[in-house]
């Protein structure tokens, strides 16, 4: 039975080493890291190790990492935490129109709390124009949140230019980077970008669901989302998800080893796939950046005239797993806000599929997937008059 998983932007298969480690931690290192006895200490050590692993990878200090339940919580903590804590400086916030829903909806709820938000538009390839950003920065702007790599269309934002432009106008504006998709795939130049916060998620880097973290530059003030036992320096109360955090550290480490080589492999898988599709002559459009410009692991294609859900299920029937629009919100029948922001027409919106690759895929798989896609598109085009 064919089983080709091309939905790595939604979530990834964990490394066997990670699941093995987590199993051991769950059954043996079950102590509460806050407990004073040895069982607690063992658990605390695992968390410390994971913290060290992540900090090393992003080249920052360990005490700047706050573990969370995942990317969504990291984004919420960054956006709401900074805004509430710094509201005496101003109530103006900025973010792009193609942020992940965990960021967009955090801003929307701040809007209801009396904050003023400006959403930065993107061009038809999904890029923010840094020259436009500085026009929107004001004296009372406190935060700007930008996603490094977009999870649906793979656009990589020019963070260096954006960071430069905002800080020129107002050096007090904090820059939050949602690095969930780029972590371990692209170099993270937090210094060069002049970033102050960055969000990460474990399950996008072959780790478990239920863990992630927020990097917070030393000195940045945040209000926590939860009240409780003051774990994570008071910024994230709640007993730590020890096994998942340990798994996160290991997964991040393994994913980052030979990063360049791995990404050139993934990138060539994507290239092979697109070439196959394009050579076949079926009607198909690339949404977002052209394949060589975008992040190496994601390609978003539209098959105008066909419905993405049907294509998705037809591929599923062949054992090939992809995403319609963005899996995080494919439970909603509305088209993706990202694809709408880059100005796709209705047909292209309805026929959009996202293929996302990982190092667990191989050449043979993507060729099979491309061939099946071509077959299905031809079959369905004939059927749906």
């Amino acid at each position, binding site marked *: 039975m064919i089983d080709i998983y091309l939905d790595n932007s939604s979530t990834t298969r964990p490394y066997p080493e990670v699941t093995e480690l987590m199993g051991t931690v769950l059954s043996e290192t079950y102590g509460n890291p806050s407990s004073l006895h040895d069982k607690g200490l063992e658990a605390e050590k695992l968390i410390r190790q994971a913290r060290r692993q992540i900090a090393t990878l992003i080249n920052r200090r360990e005490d700047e990492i706050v573990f969370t339940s995942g990317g969504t919580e990291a984004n919420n903590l960054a956006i709401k935490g900074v805004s509430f804590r710094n509201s005496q400086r101003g109530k103006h916030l900025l973010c792009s129109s193609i942020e992940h829903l965990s960021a967009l909806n955090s801003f929307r709820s701040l809007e209801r709390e009396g904050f003023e938000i400006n959403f930065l538009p993107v061009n038809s390839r999904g890029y923010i124009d840094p020259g436009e950003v500085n026009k929107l920065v004001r004296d009372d702007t406190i935060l700007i949140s930008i996603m490094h790599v977009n999870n649906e269309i793979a656009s990589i934002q020019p963070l260096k230019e954006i960071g430069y432009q905002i800080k020129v106008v107002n050096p007090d504006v904090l820059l939050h980077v949602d690095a969930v998709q780029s972590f371990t795939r692209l170099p993270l130049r937090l210094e060069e970008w002049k970033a102050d916060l960055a969000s990460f998620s474990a399950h996008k880097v072959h780790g478990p669901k239920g863990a992630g973290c927020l990097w917070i530059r030393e000195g940045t003030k945040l209000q926590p989302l939860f009240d409780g036992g003051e774990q994570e320096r008071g910024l994230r109360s709640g007993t730590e998800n020890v096994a998942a955090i340990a798994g996160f550290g290991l997964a991040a480490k393994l994913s980052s080893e030979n990063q360049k080589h791995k990404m050139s492999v993934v990138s060539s898988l994507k290239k092979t796939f697109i070439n196959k599709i394009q050579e076949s002559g079926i009607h198909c459009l690339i949404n977002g950046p052209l394949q060589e410009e975008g992040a190496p692991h994601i390609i978003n294609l539209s098959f105008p005239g066909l419905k993405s859900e049907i294509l998705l299920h037809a591929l599923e029937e062949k054992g090939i797993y992809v995403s319609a629009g963005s899996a995080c919100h494919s439970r909603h029948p509305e088209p993706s806000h990202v694809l709408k922001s880059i100005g796709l027409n209705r047909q292209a919106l309805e026929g959009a599929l996202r293929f996302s690759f990982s190092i667990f895929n191989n050449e043979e798989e993507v060729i099979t997937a491309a061939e099946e896609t071509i077959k299905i598109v031809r079959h369905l085009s004939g*059927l749906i008059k």
Partner: protein
Amino acid sequence: MILKVLVRYGEIALKGKNRNQFEQQLHQNLNAAVREYNASISRLHGRFIVTGPAEYKDQILKQLSRVFGVVSVSEVWETELDLEMIKNESAEIVNLVPPESQTFKIATRRANKKFPYPSPEMNRLLGSHLQQLFPSLIVNLKQPSFKISLEIGFDKAYLYLDSVSGPGGLPVGITGRSLLLLSGGIDSPVAGWMAMKRGLTVEALHFHSFPFTGRRSQEKAVELCRKLAQYSGKIPLHIVSVTNIQKEFKANCPDELAIILLRRMMLRLAEVVSEKRYLKALVTGENLGQVASQTLESITVIAKATEMLVLRPLVGMDKRDIIELAKRIDTYDISIQPYEDCCTLFMPRKPVTKPKIEIIEKFEAGLDIETMLEEAISSIETVIVKR
């Protein structure tokens, strides 16, 4: 602690010589509903008494109140047929009532006429006893803040405060076995519920057209059956693929006939399943006039595909009533989840509203209907969905 629950049933007590059979079926269904809580059922002068562990009180009352045939249920306190013991028990019950409830009444029902005190006298005796014990209590026959009811049985007396309504109707299984055509929509689960209410055992048949519909829409059918099984214990769900049937029609017939042709195939498939499972009637969520396939002409042409009796319990209901009932039986929220079911794709823009049987039959004659049916039947999967 032991919990006692009095179960009242209405309609079935009226059915003359069938009464015994009805009571047996209800007995069996009640038993099935509370067996997992180690409760047992005994019969009593036109009522049932359920005895079980008090720790499961809420669960047992909820389960009993969902058994068709049950009119209402009450938690009761049992005593010997002895005036003093009844008095003592009634005082215990007053202690359970919130202290701010000041007005009360007593309502006695003397099924056992050998008991020496007639009902009005019992009311007076108990009332004055309680007023002596609790001087702040005031009798109010019209609008009491609480009412103590007393049933004088043949062996025991029962006292109780409140009643929870049951769904009424007839015990499931008493009128026969049926097959419900279950889509993912709002109507068909309600139709199934109404069929069960009239005593039918229900099995369900769901059609999908994977990959044109997702697996989640099949999961929806399972979840709907789980809700219906709350009332009947379990629902066998048969799932059939009609993808190839729809493709055949798409390729060979005009678009506007697609729905009528598909519905006729669904009835034929339902007939095959019914034969295998010894089911004697089909139940559908069809209504009149809501959509094109539900005009009188369409329903007539669709129904001609089968000889079987087709029951349409929703035909007398407005959409609003159906939605209200769907919410009450808790299927509504599942039904409105946005997964496509097999009717929304291949949907013609302008479906025919007054189909002609001759034309439909002409197109069917050009197709190998038997093979299409066989192929679909071979795809059948059955799951038993339990409460």
